[in-house]
């Protein structure tokens, strides 16, 4: 990923600061609308950085995840006025106005917070991320590597999952039209091959790292991590904007 846009040129830590700013604001805001616009701003940044199209599948996944989260929570809150009942006449599956609002907030907040991650990943080569963590934040190399590697595996896993789904569907495996429990059990034919392959890959990776003398001594890196004027500008405006927005919304 050579410098396609200004997002690619920023120091990885600058983008982490931006993520943290978004997370802070997501916690500060207590109304759905501001959070929605916060989320929109994240997507706008992705658009300016020319990676929106690339991260769209990840965003879609996050939306689904947030929706599931919403569904799990929304039935658990019984304060407030009942607006809807799944099985009329009984108390089963009732949704209240308080619950609806709280869960919408929760889901949107999660969405806004997590949406920065794909933007970060799409615009930062993993190596740069590690170097920045190790040099600027003094994180031990192994931990930085672990973090970055696990994040980097997500797209690979996505690809693999889609292959697994196709392989099982080709054996007449139907994912649609089952009840909730069956649907949950139905994940097994998909999750198991994925898990087994991941374990296999982790083993292969450990071996290939060891055979290349991983952990044999102090390491050096070819490129060092530097902050440029642009970084300093972006970081200060992120901090300033967050502070201002936080103060405004808390009053």
């Amino acid at each position: 990923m050579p410098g396609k846009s200004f997002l690619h040129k920023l120091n990885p830590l600058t983008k982490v600061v931006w993520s943290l700013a978004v997370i802070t604001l997501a916690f500060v805001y207590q109304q759905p609308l501001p959070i929605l616009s916060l989320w929109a701003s994240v997507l706008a940044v992705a658009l300016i950085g020319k990676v929106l199209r690339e991260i769209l599948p990840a965003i879609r996944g996050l939306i689904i995840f947030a929706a599931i989260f919403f569904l799990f929570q929304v039935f658990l809150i019984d304060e407030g006025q009942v607006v809807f009942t799944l099985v009329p006449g009984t108390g089963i599956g009732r949704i209240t106005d308080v619950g609806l609002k709280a869960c919408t907030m929760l889901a949107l907040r999660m969405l806004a917070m997590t949406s920065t991650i794909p933007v970060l990943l799409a615009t930062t080569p993993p190596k740069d991320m590690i170097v920045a963590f190790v040099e600027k934040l003094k994180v031990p190399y192994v931990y930085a590597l672990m973090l970055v590697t696990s994040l980097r595996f997500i797209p690979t896993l996505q690809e693999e999952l889609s292959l697994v789904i196709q392989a099982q569907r080709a054996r007449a495996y139907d994912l649609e039209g089952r009840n909730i429990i069956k649907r949950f059990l139905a994940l097994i034919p998909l999750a198991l091959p994925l898990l087994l392959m991941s374990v296999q890959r982790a083993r292969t990776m450990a071996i290939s790292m060891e055979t290349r003398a991983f952990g044999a001594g102090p390491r050096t890196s070819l490129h060092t991590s530097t902050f440029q004027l642009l970084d300093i500008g972006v970081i200060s405006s992120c901090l300033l904007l967050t502070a201002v927005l936080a103060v405004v919304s808390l009053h």
Partner: protein
Amino acid sequence: MIRAENIHFTYPNGFQALKGLSFHIKAGEFVAVIGQNGAGKTTLLKLLNGLLKPTAGRILIGGLDTARARVAELARKVGFLFQNPDHQIFLPTVREELAFGPKNLGLKGAVLEDRVKDAAAAVGLTPYLDFNPRQLSKGQRQRVALASVLAMQPEVLVLDEPTTGQDYREALEIMRLVKKLHQQGHTVLLVSHDMEMVARFAGRALVLGEGQLLLDGPVATVFAREDVLAATGLVPPQVIQLARPYQEQGLLRPVLTVEELYAEIIAALRGEVDARQVLPA
């Protein structure tokens, strides 16, 4: 059996993988699909069993339009063997793994057991029915995957590079198996990068290049078009290249395999003194 009418396919990211393909495959044919990496072979196969739906044009499988049919429904007719068996294997024994497909088709009891036994026998896995498939070799796992498709008794077998990552012997064994299944009446579509295998086993070849159908015809005819093949990075088997000059001079009849060439040479030399001693037997 399979009719493709001007099919196009574009991936959601806007990549045009197939650009207007038409062909007709009759029941009982053995067709190889060849072309360089990224030519669209896998995409084409996935369209055949409905995993992907054409963005334009249509595909009929035995009269059934893949765009309207469910994948589970098409799985009865079209068995798909993926490149990597590990994408599908997840049950603790070979027996259960083979039963997965037929169970999804709603089979139970004795019928189900028969299907499993027949499929295991067809690929020579009967002694391994109670083994954990994860502990078998790559070639054996590939056969588990093949058997699990056979257990659904599809008319058409679609195989995506079934021999990659295997040694010559194991690859040949899988191909012999496929040949046997073909002789038993299955229509076979095979993607392969191994031109020797294609020449040896397939009857007809489709050549794909950048999403277009470049050639379609009997294997011998297709391999004679070196110019077109070169454009998509393919090279005919060495034995065909070796025999070509002699063939053009009318000295040999067209051949596809080493064995055929050997027989041809022997026949051509017959009559000359001690012909067999010139060539090591």
